[in-house]
């Protein structure tokens, strides 16, 4: 009995169109064990787990549960095998209460009584130390409350095999610690747990064994006690990480963008940005670090004219005339018409930066199509630009008239960055520009950002990998819970210092150096 894995995957393969998301992957988890599934963004971790939870169906390979080969056609089947998955994007119905979400889809016996459910939920909560109001509507909840609901939902169903997809991405360190305590308790209960992550210290802190994936391929499985961060990184990225990004000393820096005490509210009235102030200088890369969802997106969007500001102002200083312009509450079009050359590579490339169904030429036009007085489009220039970008950045595509949706992630990003740089900006903002990209494409992006910096552009770079932030940026602004928790010199600071600043989100005093 002890040698039969709770769940085992053998030679699983899954393709989407021409993309092979998982190639011939095998792994297993024992009862009472926590397995980390480690890999970079886009390495196929989530796809693999979605096949266990019945969202996708494997093209090839077997799933074996308790020694028996099984077929999981739907999430319903997965529940029957006592598999529960907590997705990265919560699967909750917004207009339902916590209790309603928790019992969703269950065929309980007897009369349906939502109050009884609430009592059961309270019981589970107290057993594991969760704090939750079962009658609160989901759309009124914070992110961590929503995650709690997700976890209780799985426990309520009596899952023996739990899968958590990047559960800590949205949590504060304290919340993460609480979560880990819960996970350990569940492991001691005899549950098999798989946790998807790309954070090494978490792998080492929580798991018994680690399975590493890279670009859809299985690399290896090792015992956590017999490995260390270095070895895992090597497996994860393929070779030893020696980032070696060429960083030049900033030259002729001058103030370009002054962000002064800006506040920004969500639709529900929650403060997303709270008294944020900083200066971006020309010829310098300002890195922005923080836990995902701490206000990075809103900050860039506020500067780009996509967010309404409650308070504060954003001053742009023209490089030639030295004139000051307030960008507050201007639309992107107004900002451009004021002569501010602001480029923005947003996080959501195909949902915001580009139009997936349009070809490369038409996407090149997005920023410039209004030029000229004619009512008709001028496609000559964008076509030349498209061909230039394809050639200079090495975009792999059948041609300039291919819809960008059909390009791979890295090539999509090259098209986007290529276009944004082409307008010779004075300010360049990039949000997670290397997310999902392979190492080579990532370096290409780093070099492009450095090039822009050397040309005297004020570059603002939002990143998630601290190593990259430390080696690429000149200064690093740390944001936590919508507040600036510190601005540090990237050359002298340490990962630990930034990590500390990132996590002092709530209640902590902002100490702007």
């Amino acid at each position, binding site marked *: 009995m002890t040698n039969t894995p709770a769940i085992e995957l053998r030679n699983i393969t899954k393709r989407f169109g021409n993309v092979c998301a998982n190639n011939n992957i095998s792994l297993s988890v024992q009862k009472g064990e926590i397995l980390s599934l480690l890999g970079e963004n886009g390495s196929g971790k989530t796809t693999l787990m979605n096949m266990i939870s019945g969202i996708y169906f494997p093209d090839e390979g077997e799933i074996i549960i*308790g020694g028996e080969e099984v077929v999981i056609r739907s999430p319903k089947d997965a529940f029957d095998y006592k598999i529960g998955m907590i997705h990265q994007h919560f699967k909750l119905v917004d207009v339902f209460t916590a209790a309603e979400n928790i019992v969703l889809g269950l065929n309980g016996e007897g009369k349906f009584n939502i109050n009884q459910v609430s009592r059961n939920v309270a019981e589970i909560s107290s057993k594991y130390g969760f704090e939750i109001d079962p009658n609160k509507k989901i759309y009124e909840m914070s992110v961590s409350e929503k995650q709690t609901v997700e976890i209780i939902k799985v426990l309520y169903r009596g899952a023996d095999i739990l899968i958590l997809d990047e559960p800590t991405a949205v949590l504060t360190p304290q919340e993460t610690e609480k979560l880990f305590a819960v996970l350990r308790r569940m492991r001691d209960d005899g549950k098999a747990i798989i946790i998807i992550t790309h954070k090494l210290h978490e792998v080492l802190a929580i798991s018994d064994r680690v399975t590493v994936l890279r670009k859809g391929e299985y690399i290896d499985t090792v015992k956590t006690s017999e490995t260390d961060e270095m070895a895992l990184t090597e497996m994860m990225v393929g070779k030893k990480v020696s980032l070696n990004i060429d960083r030049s000393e900033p030259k002729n820096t001058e103030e370009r963008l002054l962000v002064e005490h800006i506040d920004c509210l969500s639709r529900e009235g929650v403060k997303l940005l709270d008294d944020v102030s900083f200066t971006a200088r020309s010829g310098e890369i300002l890195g922005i670090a923080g836990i995902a969802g701490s206000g990075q997106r809103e900050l860039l969007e506020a500067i780009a004219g996509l967010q309404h500001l409650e308070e504060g102002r954003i001053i742009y200083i023209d490089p030639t005339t030295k004139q000051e312009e307030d960008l507050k509450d201007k639309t992107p079009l107004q900002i451009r018409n004021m002569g501010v050359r602001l480029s923005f590579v947003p996080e959501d490339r195909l949902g915001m930066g580009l139009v997936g169904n349009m070809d490369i030429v038409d996407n090149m036009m997005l920023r410039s199509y209004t030029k000229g007085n004619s009512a008709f489009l001028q496609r000559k220039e964008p076509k030349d630009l498209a061909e230039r970008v394809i050639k200079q950045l090495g975009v792999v595509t059948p041609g300039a008239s291919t819809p960008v949706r059909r390009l791979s992630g890295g090539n999509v990003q090259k098209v986007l960055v290529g276009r944004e740089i082409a307008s010779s900006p004075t300010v360049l903002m990039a949000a997670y520009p290397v997310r999902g990209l392979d190492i080579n494409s990532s370096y290409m992006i780093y070099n492009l950002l450095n090039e822009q910096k050397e040309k005297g552009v004020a570059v603002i770079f939002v990143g998630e990998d601290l190593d990259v932030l430390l080696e690429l940026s000149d200064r690093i602004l740390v944001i936590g819970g919508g507040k600036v928790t510190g601005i540090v010199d990237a050359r002298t600071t340490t990962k630990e210092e930034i990590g500390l600043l990132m996590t002092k989100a709530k209640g902590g005093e902002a100490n702007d150096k």
Partner: protein
Amino acid sequence: MTNNAVKHSEPLLRVSKRAEVVWWKGWIIRGISIVLALIACAFIIVLLTGQNPIEVYGALIKGSFGSSRKVWIMLQNLAMLLCVSLAVTPAFKMRFWNIGAEGQVLMGCLATSVCMIYLGDKLPIGLLIPIMLIASVLAGVIWAVIPAIFNANWKTNETLFTLMMNYVATQLVAFCIVFWENPLGSNTVGVINSSTQGGWLPVIFGQKYLLNILVVAALTVGLYIYLKYSKQGYEISVVGESVNTAKYVGINVKKVIIRTMAISGAICGVAGLLLVSGTDHTISTTTVGGMGFTAIMVSWLAKFNPALMTLTSFLIVFLDRGASEIATAFRLNESVADILTGVILFFIIGSEFFVNYKLNLRKKHNQGNLSASAKEGK
């Protein structure tokens, strides 16, 4: 440990999205669906009448091509349906589900009728036609822009809003008909200015419908160019694909929504003018005759491409005329045309699935220890 779980087998059929379909393959699939639909229709007719199916198909073709008069009627119907389809297209391209073309055209009809009745015999035709054009376009625009304003500002559901507007328009027309009744008590308007022909669009080259057809042909070319080559057309595509992208590049989304619906409404207004002043010379609550709804089908089938829409509207008009002919030839109730059109459309709608998705049959397991272990598991 999983004793209580049910043992499942792999599903027999699995559906997955096609990566990309070659355009001609798509059209072959659609073609097959039409052939199957025609077979199904023949089956229905044979069931109802006991006639030879070959004769049924003969009648189908005769409906559109039986005589030169029938060809002209077919072309006229084609032109009108195409005109309304052109009208709904810009909005659809923007993913604005305007199902209120019926009402927008009807308002165009109403405005035209007002001009004909009150000004028809007072103004020279050279002055009257521009006035009618302005009035009908304005009426269509107003009817289209109201839902657009609410949608742009408060995201009011446009499908439901435009649907309701249809009936408000119908009642407005019913209201006016009572005033214009001719003869009294008939509850119809009768032919407007039947003796003086005041406000009738001129007949050119001796063909009653030729002017309508030429106007719609010009509109088709115009809209094709507008959508494909103009800056506004480009904005429509961007807003339709992604509102976020549109905002990111500084497109004023509200303005585009309202402007595009105004264009839709304007073309609807023109359709109303052509219907009343160029064709019927009268107005009733059913003047538009459901074209506002059929047009949605035409536009959607043609993937919102005005050039392809000439083909899809021909297809629908051909089937409709053919079905009417069948009804007459076999002495069936006129409504049989609706049934047959419905059946054919169901087939075409269904065929889109096979263009966009692919079916995977269950694969046999590889031989060897894997299948052996699967058996042991039992």
